[in-house]
């Protein structure tokens, strides 16, 4: 079929776009445009790599495109189509340039939040409280009183969680506290959002500064209770 060599890649690109944009939100959260663009660019790279592996496939894939753009032997509809493309292309570039530079009332894209690095005095700390069932239970009790309104049953879905953006951390997610050492949590609980390091400011965190309400020992117990309740283990080196 004439044009079939272009049809499959085009269908693949369109199909993937539809899947990422409209299909995925049916069973999970939508993907941001940045990620969709990344995946489509990878797909496009793959198509180009595969289609240019041999001289034959390259000629059959790119040849018609080059001939269309160069206008060799064209007349009638094809000639008009070529002129339309050549006219539309700079307009497309102009539109893209305008939309990316024109001032807008929309808020800027969310900066990628990064994990703040703990200050030196916290980085080297270790939990001085023994990990006994009694201490873990006490920690869970303190957690229920101070942390659960936002962090819920360790899943970040406490009664107050819907009021925050970004939402409270989900400790059951294996990519959160399981990746961190206990001292990191100690720093975050003790100093809260206002105690975040200056690097990468401004931070967006409503985490209270618990050092005024809780003693250090209580914070360490909360950490133990948190890990136990979430079914996670802290990062250690032994």
């Amino acid at each position, binding site marked *: 079929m004439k044009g079939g060599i272009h049809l499959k890649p085009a269908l693949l690109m369109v199909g993937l776009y539809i899947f990422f944009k409209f299909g*995925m939100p049916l069973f*999970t*959260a*939508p*993907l*941001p*445009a*940045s*990620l969709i663009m*990344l*995946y489509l660019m*990878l*797909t496009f*790279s*793959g198509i180009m*790599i*595969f289609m*240019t*592996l*041999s*001289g*034959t496939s*390259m000629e059959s894939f790119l040849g018609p495109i080059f001939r269309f753009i160069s206008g060799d032997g064209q007349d009638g509809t094809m000639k008009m189509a070529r002129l339309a493309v050549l006219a539309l292309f700079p307009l497309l570039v102009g539109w893209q340039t305008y939309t990316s530079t024109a001032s807008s009332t*929309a*808020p*800027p*894209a*969310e*900066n*990628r*939040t*990064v*994990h*703040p*690095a*703990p*200050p*030196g005095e916290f*980085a*080297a700390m270790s939990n001085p409280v023994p990990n006994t069932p009694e201490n873990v239970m006490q920690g869970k009790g303190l957690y229920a009183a101070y942390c659960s309104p936002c962090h819920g049953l360790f899943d970040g879905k406490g009664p107050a969680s819907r009021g925050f*953006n*970004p*939402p409270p951390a989900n400790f059951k*997610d*294996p*990519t959160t506290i*399981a*990746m961190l*050492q206990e*001292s*990191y949590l100690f720093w975050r609980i003790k100093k809260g959002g206002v105690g975040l390091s200056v*690097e*990468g400011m401004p931070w967006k965190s409503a985490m209270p500064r618990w050092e005024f309400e809780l003693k250090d020992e209580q914070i360490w117990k909360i950490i133990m209770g948190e890990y136990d309740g979430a079914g996670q*283990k*802290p*990062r*250690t*080196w*032994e």
Partner: protein
Amino acid sequence: MRNHEALQGQDPGRLNLWGLSVVGLALLAGLLGVPVAGWAEDAASASAAVSYRDIPQLGGSRNIIWVVAQLHLLLAGFVLGVPIFAWLCEIVGWKTGEKRYDKLAKEFTKLLTSSYATTALFGGILLFLLISFYPKLMTYLTDIFFPSFIAYCGLFLLETATLYLYWYGWDVMQEGRAKVFHLFLGFLLNFFAFFIMVIPNSWATFQASPVVIAEGSNVARAWAATWNPTWWPVNIHRLIANVVLGGYICGAYAGVRYLSAKSAEEREHYDWMGYVGNFIGVFGLLPLPFAGYWLMREIYQYNQQMGITLMGGFLSWLFILQAMLIGVLFLGSNYYFWLGITHRIPGAEAKYKKPIMAMLVILLLCLGVWMTPHSLVASLEEARKLGGTHHPLLGVFGVMSAKMTVANLMILVTFMSFIMYWRAGKEETATWAKLARAVMSGVLGVAAIVVIVLGVWGYFVPAIVRINYFSVAQVLIVIFVMLTITPLTALLLRSARTTTEMIWGRMPPRAGYALVLNAVMVILLMTLMGYARSSSRVHWHIYGVMRDNSEYAYSPALGYAAAFMSLNTFLFCMLVAFIFWVATMGDKAKAGHGAMPAMAGGSPELDRSKAH
């Protein structure tokens, strides 16, 4: 004729003397320039207590050091990588009797002599600039590392003498015991080069991961500081990276020469050289992620703050860029292998189309996972729908368990690309060939499944189990696959019948561009990771010990840093192009006068034997 040969032999010598003269003049100029470098210094502080000097008119001390240090490091990587490359080629040529490997080794050793002088020149400039701009820091480091400074100078003398013997003795040490001695010289060259690399590594890694220095003799203090936690991980990582850099730059050189080749003989030769360069680059690339993983593990264990700054903090975007660059490198290397199959082996296209597509799809899927950040760039509206910047489903791709898994799979695919290339155009005739193929398929399939299972399981075990056992197991499995399939394939091919002869010189121009692209990617990667390693110290000259109190103590924005990475990559490419141009100038003149070779540095003896 002997006189003619003698004259030919002198050409590089002249070049080298000229190069050394330039170095000498530059060093002299540097010495004379030292007082000038302090023009921005406050007159009142012109005493021994000066901590910093600057030349703001030239962009500031940090930027100047950034460019010079990066260029020195890239040149050093090239100068240390090329001898490994050349020596391996020489051994292959000696063992197989294929003279073209020997010629290739010689061609690159010739480039080494001029590159060596340029590297030393940049090293001298860097040293003078460091002493001028950071006197307090340099005083501190000198106080600790004084003995290793002396050892470093001694090694340089040994390395230089060995290089002279290795290069100038090439033609006279071609046969019998003399050749064995020449190979030994090649070993010595690499031996000294390795220590020339590890000694400065100790200075740089001490800045990042200092240790408590005990009281004692100068040597004892230097020894204690040298054995800091990141010293060996950096040594291994850089050693492998140098092989990769040397291989890919060789490939790029061959690619450029291939694109400009005028005769069939040249095309054939540079096509083959490009293949060897790409092969050695890939050979080094396969273990590189393991070495990088070990380095990051040691950094994180040494200091949680530094580990998070790098892997999750403000420098973490660099690792997404790194994934992109490594991805392009993997794709570029495989693309070159696949182009080789479809163009050098007539009729192979149809047979290998499907396996190539399967490998390409796996590579792209893996790359997609590797490039997915843990937290995403999203508009406010998108972030609201997401419930933050972590995607509930794809967020799991953003952490090390996923990255390590896909890195291992990409290594497996690239390895299989090579095996496929190796076997293409041959028919295995051994009676046990079917069984061997089944074993190889089984090993590969089981290995891939186990790597994925360990990767998924890694989310459900404590971090230390994943880091110490699962990740290590994944690496060992991949190494096991390589160690099983490589000898099996070699055994199979020993009795194989060649059905289609490989034809060199038929690669399309895009293969040459792919080789150049790979080299540029490696250089960009080195500049990127150089910035990451250096910036992970944040506002410390020596982490936690000596604070940076200069006006440049802040960390530059990523966009600003990216501009410098690009600048350094561009400058290095220009330098290498210049070195190649200068080093091959004489050969072009010779070729113009009717003397043999189409290739630079070709041995007259060997050329004659080939002509006969």
